[in-house]
């Protein structure tokens, strides 16, 4: 697999409030009358802007996570399909949230509308409390078998079938997406979270701790160390965040990629600013380092 670099549409703080609509965020906005909202700016204008920024600054794709406190990823995915031209879109797929047929059907439309740019990122990161709030009472030991059933069924109906499957979690009779899936291959499959067994199910594994073929990291990159220090004084970052000057961060990411990472996912808060820093400052440096390493190896 050739290295591909993604931006993660992870939102908190200031990102959540941008283009937001509501009494708290924009006191001058009209009252909650659906008609008065026609033609108004909303949060999806901001999401589209991040996606386009990622595309313009050279990212290969976008990861749309399923944050229980955020937007629903199938809706975000679909809303961004026509806002972008070449970006791949990795959509978090939560197996307990829909029938397997319906997951596959939504995926087929996304593939068609995007020209085959979709990736499935099966989300195994949700803990029992989050799942219960979402109406999902599957026990932990069943999460991977359920994901396996989902993938088997979705692949089975991707085409002319007919595919029969009656599992513990999903069923289908004479299933086939037929012309819906014709011309498009089944999406690349990422596994978010889960143990080593999860790795065997997908094309790329993002382990809960550390990295494998997939690595998802928060970055903080600034021109000088003084700039970095100034930001650090204001921010609290995850312990495994990659921090430093542009050159430092590119160097650290190159080392990470050298461990076998093929899907590198970056994120940082205040996204419209950070996606430009990452795209303009880090990606070119990183690609330069990696092609240099290739030449050295050759």
């Amino acid at each position, binding site marked *: 697999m050739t290295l591909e670099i993604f931006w993660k549409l992870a939102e908190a703080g200031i990102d959540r409030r941008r283009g937001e609509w509501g009494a708290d965020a924009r006191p001058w906005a009209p009252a909650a009358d659906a008609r008065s909202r026609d033609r108004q700016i909303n949060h999806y204008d901001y999401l589209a802007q991040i996606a386009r920024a990622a595309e313009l600054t050279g990212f290969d794709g976008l990861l749309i996570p399923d944050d229980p406190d955020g937007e629903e990823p199938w809706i975000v995915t679909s809303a961004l399909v026509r806002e972008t031209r070449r970006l791949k879109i990795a959509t978090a797929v939560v197996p307990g949230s829909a*029938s397997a047929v319906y997951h596959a059907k939504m995926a087929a439309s996304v593939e068609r*509308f995007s020209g085959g740019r979709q990736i499935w990122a099966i989300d195994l990161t949700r803990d029992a409390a989050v799942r219960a709030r979402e109406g999902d009472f599957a026990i932990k030991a069943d999460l991977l078998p359920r994901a396996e059933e989902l993938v088997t069924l979705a692949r089975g109906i991707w085409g002319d079938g007919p595919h029969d499957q009656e599992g513990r979690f999903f069923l289908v009779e004479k299933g086939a997406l037929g012309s819906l899936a014709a011309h498009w291959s089944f999406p690349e499959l990422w596994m978010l979270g889960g143990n080593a067994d999860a790795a065997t199910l997908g094309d790329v594994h993002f382990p809960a701790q550390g990295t494998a073929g997939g690595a998802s990291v928060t970055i903080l990159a600034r021109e000088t160390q003084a700039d970095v220090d100034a930001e650090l004084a204001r921010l609290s970052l995850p312990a495994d965040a990659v921090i430093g000057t542009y050159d430092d961060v590119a160097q650290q990411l190159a080392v990470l990629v050298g461990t076998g990472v093929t899907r590198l996912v970056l994120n940082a808060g205040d996204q419209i600013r950070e996606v430009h820093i990452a795209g303009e400052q880090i990606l070119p440096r990183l690609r330069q380092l990696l092609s240099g390493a290739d030449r050295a190896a050759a």
Partner: protein
Amino acid sequence: MSIDFYWRIPTHGCSSSIRQRNSNRGDWSPLAPGNQAPGLRDGAPDGTSYIDHMAEIARAAEISGFVGGLLPSFPMTDDPWVISAALARATKAFRFMIAFQPGFLSPVRAARMSASLQRATNGRVVYNIITGGGGPAQRWWGDSFDHDDRYDRTTEFLDVLKGVWKQAPFDHKGRFYEVAGGGLPEALAREDIPTIYFSGSSEAALQSAAQHADYYLSWLEPFEQLRAKFAQVKARTAELGRGIKCAIRVEVIARPTEEEAWREVEIGFANVAAETRGSFGRQGGDSVGVHRLAGIGADSARDYRDLIVSPNVWGGFSLLRPGPALGLVGSYENVAARLDELIDLGADSFILAATPHLEEAYRVGEEVLPLLGSRAPRLAAA
């Protein structure tokens, strides 16, 4: 009282003419004379796709004064949620009426998808909740419940959907669903729960509709049959505690003169081989509505006139394209008069459709709707 007029987005391709039964608009068949094939110009993906044509239909509908459009969902169609979100930013006022069955999604997920979509569209989501069907088709979708069970499940599904949306933290332990402390993120919970169009003719359906639905949606049926049905629906749901409005899906062929309209039917009918008429008239499943229409007899007709049910009402539409058997055929004045009659017998809202959906949205919006009586809406406000 104002009447809402919706259009329909064909979700499995469209045809350039009602005279030919095909889906030649869209990437469903290769490019050929009389056809367009977005996405597959030289047999390979070209960067456009059928969503781009659906966007044009939605824009034509909103330009022509329709409040929105129904997005039907069948096994071979594109998905209404994906279509709606993809078109949210391509349209301004168009409401997305999403057809879906409770068996497709968990109710908590459905609430979250809906609220996100309300945010993406600035509050333009409408539901068309479908419960009927059954049999092998239902198992195709991965769903195995029986008919009456499915209406119980629809009721419970909507209980949970509304509960997590507006009564967080929401706990529920029912026959079909369980939730502990469910809710939506605050910004999503502020959104309005979509207006609910509800389909289903059985007593089980009406019990469910009375609890949750805003509109009872029927296919076009013989007018007196519809009058009786709407009266019963309104009375029964009022008895059950919450009266609902009625809506009709109506396919139309409207032309400057009645003769021109019937010529479309005559040619379309002649283009369907006699031996295939039977299969086009029928649909599977255990839906009461489907059985109610089975007596029309498209398969035995030798002449298109055999299928005229009443003035301007033709029962052979299922021969010309997939969907309901009955539709309206006539001059602009004829069709407007029939729609006025339907309003008089209890219709509060319509989902209209005509093939090709893009050009006909303009024709129906410009030529037919302005002729409706004073109870119809002033379209400029839409």
